[in-house]
């Protein structure tokens, strides 16, 4: 995610910033631009500013948010023409002394419910369609697992990046293919399909390959790479789709075989707890044995009174 600018966190935004917000009222079917002026402070995010507007100026402004720290993926918006998370965007990053204006719109490629809130039904439906979970054939083993499945570090690294997705929808709102083809699965769902297809613990890869093998699936992508450029978690859905497509082509030519790992099985040698070496001490004069035996006392009452 190239647009995150860490320096902006210590920059001071213009003292007064004009917020132009695209609003929509479904009861009246009316949408309009509304202007608010917000007094800023250092470290203010766009989400902070929107909440300040909601609390102090206009209670009717509707937006969706939850974690305020780029974890939940609720607050995707188009800020000054770029799809970003409102909570991850500093006001100082998007407004300058020369142009103290911030334009906020609901995400493109989604149906708007009200003001800045968009409808994720279609998005989650597509996510669900690629079966984003591990599928195992052996039901008995799955229900009563004895051992964990083997996963080598390099296998883990091959899909770790794609598993960071927080389903914020920014990639879908930036996708120019999705803009003209609503049936396209979209970067998020396709990246998740790839993440599970190459997971060696998964056995549902063939079903998923059938699902993505269509015009609306992996062949809909035309590598505009906007998804990778806007993703706030550096998931790189664009690269995942290209890998998935080439994997699918190789699979159809019979050149690709899925590696499947099973339960690790019992360890060959039973691990034992080693006794502490006699010289193991934290500080000179402090013996670990004594520490282990002594009870820990926390002066709760004193802490509360103090």
């Amino acid at each position, binding site marked *: 995610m190239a647009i995150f600018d860490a320096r902006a966190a210590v920059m001071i935004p213009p003292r007064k910033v004009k917020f132009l917000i695209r609003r929509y009222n*479904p009861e009246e079917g009316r949408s309009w631009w509304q202007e608010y002026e917000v007094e800023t402070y250092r470290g203010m995010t766009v989400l902070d500013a929107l909440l300040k507007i909601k609390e102090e100026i206009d209670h009717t402004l509707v937006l969706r948010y939850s974690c305020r720290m780029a974890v939940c993926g609720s607050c995707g918006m188009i800020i000054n023409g770029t799809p970003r998370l409102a909570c991850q965007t500093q006001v100082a990053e998007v407004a300058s002394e020369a142009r103290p204006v911030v334009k906020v719109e609901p995400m493109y490629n989604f149906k708007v419910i009200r003001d800045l809130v968009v409808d994720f039904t279609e998005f989650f439906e597509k996510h669900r369609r690629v079966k984003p979970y591990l599928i195992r054939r052996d039901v008995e083993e799955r229900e009563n697992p004895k051992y964990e499945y083997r996963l080598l570090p390099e296998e883990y690294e091959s899909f770790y990046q794609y598993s960071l997705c927080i389903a914020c929808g920014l990639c879908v709102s930036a996708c*120019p293919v999705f803009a003209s083809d609503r049936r396209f699965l979209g970067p998020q769902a396709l990246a998740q399909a790839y993440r599970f297809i190459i997971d060696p613990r998964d056995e549902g890869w063939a079903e998923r390959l059938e699902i993505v093998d269509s015009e609306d699936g992996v062949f809909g992508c035309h590598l505009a790479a906007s998804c990778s450029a806007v993703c706030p978690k550096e998931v790189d859905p664009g690269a995942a789709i290209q890998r998935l497509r080439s994997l699918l082509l190789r699979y159809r030519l019979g050149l690709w075989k899925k590696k499947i790992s099973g339960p690790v099985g019992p360890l060959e040698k039973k691990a034992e707890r080693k006794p502490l070496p006699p010289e193991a001490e934290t500080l000179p004069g402090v013996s670990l044995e004594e520490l282990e035996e002594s009870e820990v006392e926390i002066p709760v009452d004193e802490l509360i009174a103090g």
Partner: protein
Amino acid sequence: MAGRQGRSARLLDLRPGWKAFVNPWLLRIANNPERLAFIMHRVTGVIASLFLFLHIISTNVPAREGWEAWREEVMNLQGLTLTSILFYIAMGAILFHGLNGTRLILAEALALGIGRPEKPKPPYIAPLLRGFQRTLLYATFVLWIILWALLGYVMFFT
């Protein structure tokens, strides 16, 4: 939308609005020349297919009306500046479409030049945007401009 009801409302809601169609032009995304290449690939693709269509029609003239008619038509058309300018534009479009298409085939079908998955670390630029395909993209732009300018020189000044 309020006001619309029933099946047609649902159909209309599923269709992206006019704004969504021009979405590629409206968004501003940093570090993303691939998007520009995507738009140009679309536009040049349309121009190239139009050219192909006209080309097939015009080469079909001898079969329908004999060589004499064809020669006359070509002679008439070739004298016009407008024809050569349109031809020049069509050639430029085909050139870009071909050069960019090579990069796309490498990246899309063979997954070449798209970086490798990694643990994200600052400054958080996706591997795809740092991969070799980006170099190829710049090379495409440069080569395209050089070749197109050369063609223009040959067509108009020699």
